[in-house]
């Protein structure tokens, strides 16, 4: 966390409270810095994205930079920790280059805190995607969402959640086929006989009309497919985060490190805007040493919803553009080469 002198803190606070409000880079109170987003940056991961806020246009450095990647692994229900229908586990790790002044212990604590905020929002049972199951009651997908913070120039939570949403939007779940192994009934004497693999249809040695035996699917396989699988369900359910930095009489968005250190309280709100329903509040956190009251919280939630809607619309437009760029346009370029 940046250490800031009392004089600088007072300077930043009084310029924000002046009329018109002034910020160091000349932005308005609700203006964001430029946000750059790229998806599919880690080809080995099932879904990935990189978000940077406030990058310098000249050299591409500076600013808050976050990379999120989703990786799927299989876990068993019952013996392991699996849940029927799959689950999502998130983790945030901060590169020491992002916080060069923090000791390893303090860095660990910061990682823990960010992980718990991310987990509490994205791993909640009500947000679980529907296509993470493999074999009902036996095997399911565990989606590990790992977020790495490479550099922090303020507004880290917005960046983390944007990257998480983009990575989950980009995630493709491999198609699985249930499989049952069955020995050939007739030649029991010949132990070297290979086992028959029946895929989804069962060929009985006896009559095909024998419906007394129920099929117990015991395992699964990954069929050879030309793409990486089907997109992860729930593109409309992953929330966007908005950090409202609070001074007693006003709030502002997208704070730089110094502005964050000068403000005693911030409110994180997580909103989703499903296309045909009312906006849902998926989480809310008050952080800092200041206090608020119900009246302020009520007006902040209303304003927060407005800002979050803008962020949501912009993000969705960009994600659709990314989809086009990587699939359709890439194919066109390949065809026209």
């Amino acid at each position: 966390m940046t250490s800031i002198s009392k004089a600088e803190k007072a300077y930043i606070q009084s310029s924000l409270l002046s009329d018109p409000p002034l910020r160091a880079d000349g932005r308005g109170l609700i203006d964001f810095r430029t946000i750059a987003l790229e998806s599919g940056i880690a080809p080995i991961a099932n879904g990935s994205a990189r978000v940077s806020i406030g990058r310098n246009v000249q050299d591409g450095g500076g600013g808050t930079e976050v990379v999120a990647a989703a990786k799927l692994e299989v876990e068993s229900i019952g013996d392991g920790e699996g849940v029927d229908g799959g689950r999502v586990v998130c983790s945030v790790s901060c590169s020491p280059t992002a916080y060069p002044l923090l000791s390893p212990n303090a860095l660990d604590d910061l990682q823990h805190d960010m992980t718990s905020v991310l987990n509490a929002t994205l791993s909640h049972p009500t947000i679980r995607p529907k296509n993470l199951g493999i074999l009902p009651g036996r095997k399911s997908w565990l989606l590990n969402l790992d977020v790495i913070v490479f550099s922090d120039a303020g507004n880290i939570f917005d960046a983390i959640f944007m990257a998480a949403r983009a990575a989950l939007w980009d995630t493709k779940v491999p198609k699985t086929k249930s499989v049952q192994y069955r020995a050939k009934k007739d030649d029991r004497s010949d132990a070297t006989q290979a086992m028959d693999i029946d895929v989804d249809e069962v060929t009985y040695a006896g009559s095909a009309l024998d419906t007394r035996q129920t099929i117990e699917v015991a395992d699964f396989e990954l069929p050879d497919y030309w793409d990486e699988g089907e997109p992860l369900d729930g593109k409309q359910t992953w929330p966007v985060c908005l950090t409202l930095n609070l001074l007693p009489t006003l709030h502002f968005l997208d704070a730089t490190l110094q502005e964050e250190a000068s403000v005693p309280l911030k409110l994180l709100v997580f909103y989703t805007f499903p296309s045909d329903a009312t906006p849902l509040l998926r989480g809310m956190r008050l952080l800092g040493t200041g206090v608020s009251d119900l009246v302020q919280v009520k007006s902040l939630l209303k304003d927060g919803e407005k800002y979050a809607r803008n962020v949501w619309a912009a993000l969705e437009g960009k994600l659709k553009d990314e989809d086009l760029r990587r699939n359709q346009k890439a194919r066109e370029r390949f065809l026209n080469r």
Partner: protein
Amino acid sequence: MAQSANDRRRINGPEESFPPVFDDDDEDTQLKTQRSRAPGDIRPIFLQPGLISQANGSAYIETEKTKIACAVYGPRQSKTTTYSEKGRLNVEVKFTPFSCTRRRAPMRLKDAEDRSIGVSIHQAIVSSIRLELFPKSTIDVFITIIENDGIEGCIASGSLAASTALADAGIEMLGLVASCSAAIFGDDIRLDPSEAEARASDGTVILACMPALDSITSIWQSGQMSANLSLKCMRQCHERCIDIHSIVAQSLLEHRKID
């Protein structure tokens, strides 16, 4: 050499062990989420300050299945050499091995769950303490969870215990902190959910406030709900916190009278 999980001071059981599965575990979750009290009622609170004589201040809180002991040491000299103009508040939470259904290893040092509860309680009480009166000092709050009935209950009861213990220690505060949790089922709000209720709910809200100053110190909402429902929930929690505040004040007064 891999760090052995064996603790030489204890008799270590087998490396992998699972809790026994009882017949009634399969009973309908409906039964577990039914409650015998009204949706707006919280479970009765037993709060006793002055439990740990060694500490500067202490408190023990018990609400049905949540039992938490809290000890406050301070203000005492900061171990670190960096100068801090304001005092530091350090909240440490520890689960006893027998507090949850699955045994928690006693030597687990940095557990994510312990830390997240500690951070929430810290957020709830830090704005109530007059830290500017204690430069270069630290106030240590140690919370031990003896029995655990859901994380929301732990955070709410832990904040209450911490605030009572701080008052018992005679540390100057701006007000007592009261905290209440709630679970949402569709459009219904149920205050003070048990673990089964919270797990079956659509979302939970934990609110910590200072009723004396009519200010909110901590909100933690997770799950899904509309903004209006969440505000309604917070308003109900806030009203309940005013009642809880009088319980805390009462228990502190009674304790002083006995001395």
